[in-house]
């Protein structure tokens, strides 16, 4: 029984490649459809996971008034510019609120080689449970800790193989790079974080004091000025963890109504964001579906023609004693060959595209997407391919099954 299947497979392989152009075209269409679906699967899953990881444990994001989505994108994912700054005093008042368990302040504004410099407290590192790969956390102002991707990026940018801890760099004003260089206040790298698969990978962390120091130093002309500026100290975003879920009912409303700040619930905003992104994913998925449908149609047409062309061959097989099932199996196997090859190629292409996309996103300091991840759900791709191929082969196989052998004899 087994050897019959092998023989069927081998013979159908020969038949498949007896029409190389049709075979290659069908393979191509099928592969593209499967690759599109693999790509959507990979990217959507990884983005979901990245969002989930970055958002974990953050109940509320407080920042300057503006778009709540922008606030979340800037404050949690660091992929947008912040809405503005808020007064440190207000954040400190928030910290004293009995509904609040923890407040992590973030000060944005500077960057180095396109990587954001974030002034914060060690709580931020602890929140993501990130570990140090090298050196230590900051102990004094102007110490900086590099995220894993940042360290890789800087090392690639010409730092050579030298250890990064102890190196110095100068931040530039603005988040995009190319701004005014804060030459008077160089940072010293005190440590490098191990990759955490979270937003910290893409950030340069330092104390909030460092950020104030850099900017106050740049604005003040004497010590009196510095004292005055101290009262006006600001942060950009405060990440809030509630002490009780009940806080969700009152706290955001109170902040939005009674203070000059804006409170945005990440859960709500990200749902909105994913719905926006989801449209894109749906479009791509639909595109993949259309490609697959075209592939199914194309395979169907090819097999249908093949069965018509090979009517005599198939009838001759019946004459030689092959059962109708075996003749139909020959056609089905031909489709399954296509499905098998297209599955392999489609998965590889999908992963390649995901990797290319991840590379492009990383170059812009955006979300982490990799083509090297294999998801259990991808096991569905060969199944899908086999299903599509079997569906396309159904009618031709039935046609082959019903091959009229007597036609061989009815030549005038």
């Amino acid at each position, binding site marked *: 029984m087994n050897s019959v299947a092998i023989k069927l497979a081998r013979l159908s392989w020969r038949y498949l490649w007896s029409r190389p152009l049709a075979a290659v075209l069908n393979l191509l269409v099928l592969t593209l459809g499967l690759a599109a679906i693999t790509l959507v699967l990979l990217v959507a899953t990884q983005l979901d996971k990245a969002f989930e990881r970055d958002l974990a444990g953050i109940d509320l994001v407080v920042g300057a008034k503006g778009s709540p989505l922008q606030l979340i994108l800037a404050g949690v994912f660091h992929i947008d510019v912040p809405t503005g700054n808020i007064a440190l005093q207000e954040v400190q008042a928030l910290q004293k609120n009995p509904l609040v368990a923890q407040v992590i302040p973030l000060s944005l504004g500077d960057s180095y080689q396109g990587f954001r410099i974030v002034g914060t407290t060690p709580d931020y590192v602890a929140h993501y449970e990130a570990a140090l790969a090298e050196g230590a956390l900051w102990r004094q102002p102007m110490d900086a800790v590099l995220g894993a991707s940042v360290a890789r990026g800087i090392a690639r940018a010409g730092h050579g193989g030298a250890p990064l801890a102890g190196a110095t760099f100068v931040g530039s004003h603005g988040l995009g790079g190319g701004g005014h260089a804060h030459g008077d206040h160089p940072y010293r790298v005190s440590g490098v974080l191990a990759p955490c698969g979270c937003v910290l990978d893409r950030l340069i962390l330092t104390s909030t004091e460092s950020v104030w120091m850099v900017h106050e130093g740049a604005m003040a002309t004497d010590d009196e000025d510095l004292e005055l500026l101290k009262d006006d100290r600001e942060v950009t975003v405060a990440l809030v963890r509630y002490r009780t879920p009940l806080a969700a009912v009152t706290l955001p409303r109170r902040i939005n109504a009674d203070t000059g700040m804006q409170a945005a619930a990440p859960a709500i905003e990200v749902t909105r964001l994913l719905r926006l992104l989801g449209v894109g994913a749906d479009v791509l998925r639909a595109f993949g579906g259309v490609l697959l449908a075209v592939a199914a149609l194309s395979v169907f047409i090819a097999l249908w023609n093949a069965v018509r062309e090979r009517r005599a061959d198939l009838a001759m097989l*019946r004459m030689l004693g092959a059962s109708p099932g075996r003749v139909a199996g020959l056609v089905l196997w031909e489709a399954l060959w296509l499905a098998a090859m297209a599955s392999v190629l489609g998965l590889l292409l999908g992963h390649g595209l995901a990797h290319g996309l991840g590379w492009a996103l990383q170059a812009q300091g955006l979300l982490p997407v990799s083509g090297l991840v294999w998801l259990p759900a991808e096991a569905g791709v060969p199944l899908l391919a086999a299903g599509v191929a079997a569906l396309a082969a159904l009618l031709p196989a039935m046609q082959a099954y019903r091959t009229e052998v007597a036609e061989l004899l009815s030549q005038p």
Partner: protein
Amino acid sequence: MIRTRGLSYAYPGADAPLRFPDVDLRQGGTLLLRGRSGTGKSTWLSLIAGLRGASGGDLFVAGTQLGTQRGAEIDAWRARSIGFLPQKLYLSSALTVADNLALAYFAAGLPRDGAAITRALAQVGVDELAARRPHQLSGGQAQRVALARAVLLSPELLLADEPTASLDDEAAADALDLLRQSAAACDASLVIATHDQRVVQALAGAQTLDLNEIGPKRLLDGREKL
């Protein structure tokens, strides 16, 4: 061997069945099946090959009474017992000559026997063409390959459908000789369906089933064309 008693076949929708004369062909004998197109020649052949079920009468072919078996049994019996040389040869253009012969093993569900394929090709003098594709063969070569395929599994009955059509006199004589040799080599009975006078003359005295004699008028009304 072939033995028929009161064999008849009714076309779907036809009012009267087609009745065939009784035939007794001993094992190893030769039968000339004569008849113009439309006289029921192919119908008789497909009945003998178990491709169609008779509507009446008894039919014994190669030691088996046909009509009682299920589909798969008939297919297996045909693979073992019948060699068939179709008029249009039907060599698969997707396969080499050797692989075309191997189809007989595939269809019969037997392991491929490369040595037997070589022997069968050598027997009809085309063993050097084993690696060619059918479209690279001349008409005569292709017919030899098809003949080798027909006798590969040493059938008990060899059916040849118009083996001399479109051949010149010399080639027709050669083809006929080779056919009889091949049948004799595996001690197969040979049935040659033809309306070629050269064959009739060459096989003068052979046992004959002449279907022209059974009501040609009724049969020529086109029902035979499928």
